[in-house]
Structures are given as C-alpha cells and as structure tokens.
C-alpha cells in the first residue's frame, strides 16, 4: 500500500473454529498436538441445531451451517461490539460452496426428473450463501461478499477485510472461510472427493506428511473458521481482548498453470515480499511462518524454494498444521489464521505432524517432533490455490 495513505490499525478480537481436530479454540489448539489419523478428515462434533433452528438447518448447506457456527463463536468471543451494523462487514470465503446440495439435486434430477429438483438448490449451493447467512443471522449491513480463490480463499478474505477497516469503510468485519464438500449421496461418494482423487491430488494412503520425502498428496478435510477484525482504537476503547494485530496482506497470481505452482514458486515469492512490505517489516523481523504445506509433492517443494528465496538459507521456523488438520481448501487459510493468533498468544508453535523424514530438497526449518516455544513477533501465513492464486497475511503481537 502506498506509504502516503494514512490507514487505521486493525486487530483481531474474536476467533471461532469448526475443525476436524476439535471445534472451539481450546479443543482446536490442543487437537493440533495429537496423533494424525489416517483418511479423510470429517468434523465429528458439529450439530447445526446448536446454531440454527430446524427449518433454517434444513434449508442451509453444511458449508453455510459451518459459516454461521464459526461466526457465532467468534462474535461470542469478541463480546458486544457496540458498532452501527451498517459499518460491520462480512467478507467470508469458500472454495466451492454448496457442493453437497448440488450433487444431491443433480442426483434427484437424474433419478426422479425435473419436478424433484429443490427450489432451494440455488440459494443453498451458491458460494455466497455462507456470507449471506452470517449477515442475515446477525444483522450486519455493511459490505457482504464472498472470496473464491480455491485454497487461498480464506487468506484472501482476511486480506480484503483488512482493507475495509484500514480505509475506513467498516469498523469491524466478520471474516474467514468454510468448506464442506465431503458427504456423498446414497451409496455414491462425494463428487469433490472423487474428482480430487482422480486428479491424483490426494494421498493414496490417506496420510498427510507436509515437507516429508514420502508425501504423496493432501488429505481432504472440511471445516470453518471466523475472525472478528476490529479497528484498533475502537477495540481498545471498549476494553476488548486483543489477540493480535493484522499488520499486512498481499495477493498475487502465478499466471502459469491451473493446478501446478510456477517453478521456483515465483508467484509465492512476490506475494510474501509484498505482504512484508505491506506490513512495513523485513524478512529478518519474521519470527515464524505458518506454511501452506499441503503435503503434495509440487506445493511443498515450490513453497520451500520460495521461502528460501525470500528469507535465505536460515529461515524462520515453518509449520504446516495440515499434517493433522488435513486440507480444508477454502477454509484452510482462515483456520490457519486462527492458529496463528493462538500461536502468538500462547508463544507455542504447533508441530508439522506427519513430517518425520524431511525431504532433503526442502531445506527450510520445519517444526517437527513436537511444538516449539518462541518469542512471538510477526508471523507470516501462506495460502496458495489452484488457479495460481497466492495469498499471504502477516499477524503480529499487539505493540502499542
């Protein structure tokens, strides 16, 4: 951002998470230190009726149910905002939207004909259904938009939300992302899982091993996370609990290939460099990197090369929680941002579960074998999506 434009500071005052390792902040963070299970990562502790009435739940796809749940948790965590609802935005991501609803209704069309396709199909499956559900549920009337950039969606949403507060359009924004495309119809698997499997993106063993020489693909997951971003002076004045400050963000494109990262991670390099510049810091200031680390052969190598390019051979400690959370696509960046806020608050970097034999070609400092304590400073979080979308955000302890 041009240095001559005055911008307002933005802090994180609420967090919510729906995750396969446990929902709610403590269960989630504790869950990051567990043993990685084998296979697809479903959320098993979620009941939509905790967040929606029965009729709403029936008319809301699982991804949008997750969206509302994560927002409710984050808003409860933030406490009473005391902000005009027309100045509260919702910038909330998903990779795909209501894929389960789409599959179910296409099945109805094929098996039973036109008259059995639900009139709710469009409002349930559309990618913006999650953001819309949050806005309606809580009455926020500021900008309400959905960012769709595959696996970078959650991170891009947070970056876009940051700007709305920095430039004065909003005083608070509910941001984050949700994904739930793993439930099939009848005896048919979810079309999303089948598609990722056929493109050989998924681990054949169902084991996520970011940065490990044996990694053979990602493990698909569902989940959601929400963050309440708030203008700093307002948060301070109301005595809000401030987890951390969101000090920078960036977005770039590879312009190279629809699924493969650009060789050497050049898109990722430019994105990381721009994020640091936006935050007004240098690589030496970064104390930790929460990597994209999907456990695919191509991503992890390209990401490592990009990090080395930006930070030199001696990198900050890097972790990928996807070793235990799996990859929740459009939700991943948001879940990892929640992780970063908690990492900073607790001074503890979660390990890269599943990385036991680090790939010799990957020479970054991967946190393995257990958590690592650190003195929290600025933390970079990376997300890279199919389509060549790169997203980075920088979160730092509040320094005032």
């Amino acid at each position: 951002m041009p240095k001559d434009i005055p911008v307002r500071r933005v802090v994180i005052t609420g967090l919510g998470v729906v995750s396969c390792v446990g929902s709610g902040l403590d269960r989630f963070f504790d869950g990051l230190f567990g043993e990685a299970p084998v296979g697809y990562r479903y959320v098993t502790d979620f009941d939509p009726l905790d967040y929606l009435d029965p009729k709403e739940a029936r008319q809301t796809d699982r991804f949008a149910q997750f969206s509302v749940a994560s927002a409710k948790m984050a808003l409860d965590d933030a406490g009473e905002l005391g902000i005009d609802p027309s100045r509260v935005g919702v910038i909330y991501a998903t990779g795909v939207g209501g894929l389960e609803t789409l599959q179910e209704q296409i099945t109805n069309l094929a098996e039973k004909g036109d008259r059995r396709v639900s009139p709710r199909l469009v409002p349930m499956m559309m990618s913006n259904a999650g953001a819309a559900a949050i806005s309606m549920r809580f009455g926020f009337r500021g900008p309400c938009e959905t960012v769709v950039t595959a696996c970078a969606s959650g991170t891009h949403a947070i970056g876009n939300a940051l700007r709305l507060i920095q430039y004065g359009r909003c005083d608070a924004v509910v941001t984050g992302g949700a994904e739930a495309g793993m439930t099939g119809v009848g005896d048919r698997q979810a079309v999303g899982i089948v598609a990722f499997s056929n493109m050989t993106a998924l681990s054949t063993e169902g084991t996520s091993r970011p940065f490990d020489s044996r990694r053979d693909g990602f493990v698909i997951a569902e989940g959601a996370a929400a963050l309440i971003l708030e203008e700093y002076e307002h948060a301070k004045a109301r005595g809000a609990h401030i987890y951390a400050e969101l000090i920078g963000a960036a977005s770039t494109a590879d312009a190279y290939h629809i699924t493969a990262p650009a060789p050497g991670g050049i898109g990722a390099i430019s994105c990381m460099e721009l994020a640091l510049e936006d935050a007004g810091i240098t690589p030496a200031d970064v104390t930790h990197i929460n990597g994209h680390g999907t456990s695919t052969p191509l991503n992890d190598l390209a990401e490592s090369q990009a990090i080395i390019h930006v930070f030199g051979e001696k990198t900050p400690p890097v972790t990928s929680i996807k070793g235990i959370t799996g990859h929740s696509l459009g939700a991943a960046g948001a879940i990892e941002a929640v992780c970063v806020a908690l990492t900073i608050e607790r001074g503890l970097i979660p390990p890269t579960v599943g990385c036991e034999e680090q790939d010799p070609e990957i020479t970054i400092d991967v946190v393995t074998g257990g958590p690592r304590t650190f003195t929290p400073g600025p933390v970079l979080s990376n997300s890279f999506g199919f389509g060549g979308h790169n997203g980075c955000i920088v979160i730092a302890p509040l320094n005032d």
Partner: protein
Amino acid sequence: MADDATLEKFKACAVEVLQVPAEKVTLEARFSEDLDADSLDLVEFVMALEEAFDISVEESELEGVTTIGQAYDLVTNKL
C-alpha cells in the same frame, strides 16, 4: 378417497418440509401466517406431496391455495 392414513401421511410431509410441530398442522392453518412458510416452502411441500402420493400438481392449481385444508383437498381430489 381420504382417510386417517392419508391425513397422517399428508401431515408428515408438512412436518418434514415446514419443520413445524404436528399439532400446528390443522386444516385451518394458513401457510404464511400460521406456519411461517414462504413461497419456496410451498413449492417444496407440493413436491413432497407429489412424491408421497404419486400425483402431479400443476403450478396453476396452487393459485389461491393458502391453507393446509385447501392443499389437502387438492391432493385428495387426485387420489
């Protein structure tokens, strides 16, 4: 033909689609005012009835249908 079993089956569709307690599904109940059902709910409800009773209801037949009783008559007249 209309009998208790038909009425029960009809009510079950309403309970499932409209997510209302069975006791609220009376013949006098109005979709909008009493059952909080909007136009899409009505379309879904009719689809469920078509499926349950193996009948076909044209959109034009729904004009003026505002109560459970009217919908019930529409269905039973086709059985």
